[in-house]
């Protein structure tokens, strides 16, 4: 089995969110970048587990500039065999998906895994677009996956429950919580990652279909109204008459 895992770089979950250049750009000053948690904890680790039991290879792909390489090395340290970086600023989701789909088609991968969503722009777009561009099935928000020959059995979230589905390779999935447990890279992995192949490929031409023109921060919350624990009737009164939510 050939697995392709899409790895993206995002600000650490505790980063302070603000914007520069007239609110048109995320302020990266002092921000620490990490592998998007869904890509690392769920998509990558499940691909590694399946490779370990069934054989095959795990390649990661990242659309991004050279400054993304530290997070790519982290994915290699966790256990991916090799990495590909498409040398471009990730434009919109369509641009990024187009790059991934072109590479995946040319190299005949069996399973393409993305994370549920990037935690910065929260699009949840790229997996579905890659599947459409490749003409394969797409299992969105998969929480479990097993493989038996060319047939995969997956559990996926659906409105009001979960569904168990079967699909043949090749296909694309987005990985959500439940797929696997986070793996912490060990010293040997970190050393090995330094010499694993990281291929850099130039992008294929593609126009962005969307762009962010600016960003805004939500208005400051006003001070919390405290109610005494011995006077919960007052809380109910406020919720009923002031906030009008009950």
């Amino acid at each position, binding site marked *: 089995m050939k697995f392709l895992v899409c790895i993206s770089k995002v600000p650490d*979950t*505790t980063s302070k969110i603000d914007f520069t250049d007239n609110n048109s750009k995320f302020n990266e000053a002092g921000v620490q970048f990490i592998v998007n*948690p869904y890509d690392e904890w769920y998509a990558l680790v499940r691909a590694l587990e399946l490779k370990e039991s069934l054989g095959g290879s795990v390649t990661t792909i990242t659309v991004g500039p050279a400054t993304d390489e530290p997070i790519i090395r982290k994915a290699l340290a966790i256990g991916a065999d090799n990495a590909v970086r498409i040398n471009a600023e990730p434009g919109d*989701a369509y641009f990024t998906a187009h790059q991934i789909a072109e590479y995946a088609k040319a190299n005949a991968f069996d399973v393409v895994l993305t994370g549920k969503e990037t*935690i*910065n*722009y*929260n*699009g*949840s*777009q*790229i*997996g*579905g*677009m890659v*599947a*459409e561009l490749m003409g394969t*099935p797409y*299992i*969105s*928000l998969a929480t479990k996956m097993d493989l038996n020959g060319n047939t995969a*059995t997956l559990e*996926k979230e*659906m*409105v*009001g*429950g*979960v*569904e*168990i*589905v*079967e*699909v*043949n390779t090749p296909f694309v999935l*987005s990985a959500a*919580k439940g797929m696997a447990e986070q793996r912490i890279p060990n010293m040997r992995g970190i050393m090995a990652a330094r010499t694993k192949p990281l291929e850099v490929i130039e992008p294929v031409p593609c*126009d*962005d*279909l*969307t*762009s*962010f023109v*600016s*960003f*805004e*921060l*939500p208005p400051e*919350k*006003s001070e*919390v*109204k*405290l109610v005494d*624990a011995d006077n*919960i009737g007052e*809380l*109910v009164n*406020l919720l009923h008459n002031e*906030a009008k*939510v*009950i």
Partner: protein
Amino acid sequence: MSVLVYIDTLGGTVTKNSLGAVSYGAQIGSTTVVTNGRVDASELEQLKNYGAEKVLVNRSVEGADASQLTKLIVAAAEQVGADTIIFTNDLTGKAVAPRVSANLKAGLVSGAIALPEADGSIKTNVFSGKAFGIMKVHSPKRVISLTPNATEIKEISAAGSVEEFSPEVGTPGVTVKEVKKQEGDVLLTEAELVVSAGRGLKGPENWGIVEDLAKTLGAATACSRPVSDIGWRPHHEHVGQTGIAIRPNLYIAAGISGAIQHLAGVNGSKVIVVINTDPEAPFFKAADYGVVGDAFDVLPKLNEEIKKLQAQS
């Protein structure tokens, strides 16, 4: 503007989020609705009160296969000449909207929280609700995936005729083997009221007071990540950055510290009530109302007081 709205009728009913999407579409232009599944025509009738000119229904395509649904929606978009296609940004929307976008080369705005401005720009949620992004679409067609419960549902009357619609959608690429329905009465993503609890509750055996309050209110229950990680509560109740994001009218959080990753999933709630023994808990900074107190004491009292209110009205 010609608008196509896709709605999911899982279980044969039209949800509040679907009404929201139809009404959103009708405020942009002449709106056709496309849907699938086993749903009664009478259930679809009500869509005319929210601005649907026409409803196209396909009874054979199953929801699990995003590629068949994509073909259905693309065919509907062609038939009505739609330039704007609208989804709800729920599990189905996340599976299908990106495919439709790539198929039609129509820019996708996901997580929209407002109507398009005069210049076409659309406000969305980014950074897990910690900021808003203003997005522009450069392609002639666009796909908008609407954040549930983010915009006002307006009643707009229209013709709303219901028609069968059976274009060629190919064979399914995905086979559904089994469906496991979530237990519990109120769906978290649809809920207007949510009662949530964290590690402060000490153990799964103590959740009775959370469930009792939820039952009185007709609310859904939720929890923080460690609580679902240790298996005190099911995974689908986990809200936050790595769980699900919700926007109820009222979010009651007991025994949850309010870590930034938790807030990321709930900060779109209209009103937040925090109950915590620690007056320094960070959650109080994000709350509208707070009680510094023991959840084991406050939750039952709150339940009693709400019952009293309900008895009065």
